[in-house]
């Protein structure tokens, strides 16, 4: 500020000087500069008051001089000019003084200013210090109030009342003499007492806990004991009650256990189990049902079932991509997949069907989880050991004993149409190759399991259905029994047939004359292919009666030089479906149904008129009776053959049978029908 003021002054001075002072100034400046520093020091030496006096004086002098000059000028004389000049010089001196004074004044001003500034700064510093101190004070005051307001933790603790404290606390804690007066000490003591008390309580708590633990353990032990008591009691009960139950024919426990296991059966087997049990209890005491297999495996199977299926389908897709690249491993993979697909449920249901003669049909039902079909394996055991005739090999074999229980049910094809698609994936051509291992998927088995597969639908929905199962149970069981019995009967008959004896039971004797000369000499089983190859079986093959599920036999009946070959088709449905005979007589040339009407008549006599040969129900004598009739028919045929007069010698076969007429009708039939009580032969 001081510098500003000095600057302001200067122009002022200059203006007041006017233009004529300018020239001089530029000339006198270096002098002034040189003097400046000295002037500053000069200032200190000079007295400002005197300078003021000097100033005043100079100003008066100047005024006087100006006024004289004016005077002089106004007067205007010639000498006035010299005077004016003198005067001007004087005024110039005065001006110089004024200037000097002005400078001094400036310097002084500056100095003053500086001094003021310094002082001001000092004041400022003091002021700041003061402020700090004030703040500190305030802060401390705040802290103090805070401290004053602090709440101690102990205040929250509920202490016992003072009186109580003094009553209960021991003196070394209460220290009544110190604490009575001092509330602080008192509080401390009270807290101590509190602490003491709490410690004690904690101790007590721990004790109680351990106590509790102990008691719990004791309870556990006792519980264990009790629970172990139940099975022991059970076992005692069982041991004690089983003989009683058995004695009374009431197998409750066994049944109970079975029901328990049955819960783990897959639905179709469960349906079968329930229905078979129900049927066994209600209608057929000879039927017994059991569950076989590992329950644990079945349980284990239950959970991860779905995952594994997903995996499979995924890997299928992958596999198809890599089919061409990885041949060798693929085979193994496919094999695994096939195994996986054909996997059966670990549990199976056993049905034991007991027949009258103590032979038992054991049926084991399996469920193929991934194919959703059921299969069955059959086994027949007999009360007495059977001597197996060679030709009876297939009769009781597990593979064929149940074949075609219902017409056309071979059990070689999967009944579930959806399976074919699954097979295509893993390269199974037909289930036929696996049937021996897996059991046969007969249609009736599916029905017993309540599985119904509508035909000719690619993806049917299959649900296990109880009503389907129950509706088939009775007929199927009856069929099974009949099948086993007829097979066993055949089994016995074959044994004697192989020895050339046609066993005719006493209740069938009336069907045949007492004297039968023709004899069965051979009874062998033949293959289906061989049967088809025979020249005289064409009709049967063409009529579709020679399926590959049937059993085929060749019988040879002889009398003298005449040999009668009979090719026999034994339907698995024997004896409700009759065996079919095709004949070929070798006597004076070969005679079959195509060139001899009477051979044809003989065939129809055994094949079509079989109903009178069934004998007593259930008709197990049919096959042997048919063979016996064949022998009789051959007798009749040979004895009634017209004798060729031109040939010398006696007839080979003299007529011994009593016949009303030898021939009848346009096709000249021979009298093949035997009339029982009278004993003669007539035409049908």
């Amino acid at each position, binding site marked *: 500020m001081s510098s500003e003021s000095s600057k302001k002054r200067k122009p002022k001075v200059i203006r007041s000087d006017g233009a004529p002072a300018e020239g001089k100034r530029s000339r006198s400046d270096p002098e002034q500069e040189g003097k400046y520093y000295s002037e500053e020091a000069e200032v200190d030496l000079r007295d400002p008051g005197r300078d003021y006096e000097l100033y005043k004086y100079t100003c008066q002098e100047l005024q006087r001089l100006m006024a004289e000059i004016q005077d002089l000028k106004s007067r205007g004389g010639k000498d006035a000019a010299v005077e004016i000049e003198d005067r001007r010089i004087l005024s110039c001196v005065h001006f110089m003084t004024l200037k000097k004074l002005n400078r001094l004044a400036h310097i002084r001003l500056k100095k003053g200013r500086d001094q003021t500034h310094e002082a001001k700064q000092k004041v400022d510093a003091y002021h700041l210090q003061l402020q700090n101190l004030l703040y500190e004070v305030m802060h401390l005051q705040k802290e103090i109030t805070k401290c004053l307001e602090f709440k101690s933790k102990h205040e929250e603790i509920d202490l016992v009342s003072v009186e109580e404290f003094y009553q209960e606390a021991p003196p070394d804690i209460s220290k009544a003499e110190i604490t009575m007066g001092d509330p602080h000490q008192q509080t401390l003591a009270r807290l101590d007492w509190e602490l003491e008390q709490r410690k004690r309580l904690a101790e007590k708590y721990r004790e109680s806990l351990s106590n509790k633990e102990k008691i719990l353990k004791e309870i556990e032990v006792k519980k264990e004991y009790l629970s172990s008591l139940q099975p022991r009691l059970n076992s005692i009960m069982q041991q004690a009650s089983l003989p009683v139950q058995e004695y009374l024919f009431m197998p409750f426990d066994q049944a109970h256990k079975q029901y328990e296991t049955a819960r783990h059966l897959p639905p179709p087997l469960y349906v079968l189990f329930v229905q078979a049990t129900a049927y066994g209890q209600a209608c057929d005491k000879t039927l017994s049902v059991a569950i076989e297999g590992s329950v644990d495996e079945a349980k284990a199977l239950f959970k991860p079932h779905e995952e594994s299926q997903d995996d499979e389908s995924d890997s299928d897709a992958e596999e198809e991509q890599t089919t061409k690249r990885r041949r060798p491993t693929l085979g193994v993979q496919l094999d695994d997949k096939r195994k996986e697909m054909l996997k059966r449920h670990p549990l199976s249901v056993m049905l034991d069907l007991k027949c009258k003669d103590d032979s038992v049909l054991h049926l084991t039902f399996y469920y193929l989880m991934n194919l959703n079909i059921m299969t069955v394996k059959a086994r027949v055991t007999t009360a007495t050991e059977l001597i197996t005739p060679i030709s009876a090999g297939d009769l009781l074999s597990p593979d064929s004993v149940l074949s075609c229980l*219902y*017409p*056309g*049910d*071979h059990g070689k*094809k*999967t009944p579930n149409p959806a399976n*074919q698609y699954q*097979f295509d994936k893993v390269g199974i*051509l*037909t*289930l*036929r190759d696996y049937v021996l291992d897996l059991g046969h998927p007969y249609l009736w088995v599916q029905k017993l399991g309540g599985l119904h597969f509508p035909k000719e639908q690619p993806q049917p929905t299959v649900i296990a259905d109880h009503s389907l199962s129950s509706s088939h149970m009775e007929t199927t069981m009856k069929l099974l029994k009949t099948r086993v019995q007829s097979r066993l009967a055949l089994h016995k008959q074959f044994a004697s047939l192989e020895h050339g004896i046609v066993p005719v039971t006493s209740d069938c004797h009336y069907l045949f004359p007492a004297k039968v000369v023709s004899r069965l000499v051979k009874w062998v089983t033949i293959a289906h292919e061989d049967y088809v190859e025979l020249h005289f079986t064409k*009709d*049967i093959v063409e*009529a*579709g*009666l020679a*399926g590959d599920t049937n059993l085929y036999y060749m019988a040879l009946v002889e009398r003298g030089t005449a040999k009668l070959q009979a090719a026999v088709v034994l*339907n698995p*449905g024997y004896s*409700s*479906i*009759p065996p*079919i005979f095709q004949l070929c007589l070798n006597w*004076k040339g070969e005679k079959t*149904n*195509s*060139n001899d*009407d009477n051979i*044809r008549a003989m*065939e*129809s006599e055994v*094949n*079509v008129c079989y109903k009178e040969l069934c004998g007593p129900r259930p008709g197990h004598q049919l096959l042997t009776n048919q063979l016996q009739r064949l022998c009789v028919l051959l007798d009749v045929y040979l004895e009634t053959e*017209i004798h*060729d*007069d*031109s*040939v010398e010698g006696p007839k080979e076969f003299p007529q011994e049978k009593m016949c*009303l*007429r030898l*021939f*009848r*009708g*346009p*096709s*000249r039939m021979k009298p093949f029908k035997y009339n029982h009580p009278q004993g003669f032969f*007539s*035409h*049908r």
Partner: protein
Amino acid sequence: MERAVPPTVPLGQMEVFQALQRLHMTIFSQCFSPCGKFLAAGNNYGQIAIFSLSAALSSEAKEESKKPIVTFQAHDGPVYSMVSTDRHLFSAGDGEVKAWLWAEILKKGCKELWCRQPPYRTSLEVPEINALLLVPKENSLILAGGDCQLHTMDLETGAFTRALRGHTDYIHCLALRDRNPEVLSGGEDGTVRLWDLRMAKEVQTIEVYKHEVRACPPHTLFSLLPGPLLCLDLLLPSPLPSQECSRPHNGRWIGCLATDSDWMVCGGGPALTLWHLRSSTPTTIFPMWAPQKHVTFYQDLILSAGQGPCVNQWQLSGELKAQVPGSSPGLLSLSLNQQPAAPECKVGPARSCGGPGRPGVWAAQSPPSCLQVLTAAGNSCRVDVFTNLGYRAFSLSF
């Protein structure tokens, strides 16, 4: 290849029994309806099936039209013989003859009109009736069979008017001579007997198995041959010297018989032989080893059938003209439908239309709807239909 396995028909008890029945079926007799549109066939189970020929022969014939339109149980035993008048169908089986109205049959009503039993003497076994013969001139029906007699039944009254006795074994077949009131019968005893109906007695007996055909000069036959055959005589080769009719290994029985004016052809155990009746001499032996069960004249040919699947066509000279195979292993009957496809059924018995006097009928009248067919049946459930003599067109089946 589970899918490729041929679907085997599931065979239950009933199906097997039916299949066996069909397999052992024998069709003994057949007869055309008076209008010629239907064929009746009788089998060994006593059933008569009616086939519609017009449906089976039409251009839009399906498999079903080859099945019978109606089948009914006519007799207990086999139906051995059937003949038809313009209103009735007569069927004969074991000891009884039944009459059926064609109109009723075609309406599928299967009640017999009447049933008659000839007077039999034996009671132990009911004799069968093997042959029926209509005698239109006296409106009667002749029955012959197991009791070795020819019974004549008056169709007006239904009474049995006479019985002709003479055969020593049962009678297989009958034939009517169309000019004289004479009937021929052939039997198991090996004889063909000629009966005069007016006198009701036997006029001639031919024991076929005793004869042999000697080499005879052709000119002796010329005067005897009927007109149409004359032209053929020139071609007749002279038969081999002393050819025997008898074939002892086959027996003596005469199984079939047909006649045309003075000519008769018969066969069975002995060889098929053409006879001249007036002179009682065999003229031609047809070289066929198998016994024949049916023979008939057709124009200038003789058709015969028997053991074996073929219908044989013979020239009168003894030459085998053709053998047309059928579907049955053995044939028992042939039937010719010579009715024009007339809109109404008002034609006389089938026989009167045929005959050697009308050559070329087959070739001349064969419009597409022609029902003039030959049918053959025998040891199977099929009736073979020959629309042309040359080949089997199809089979009707029970």
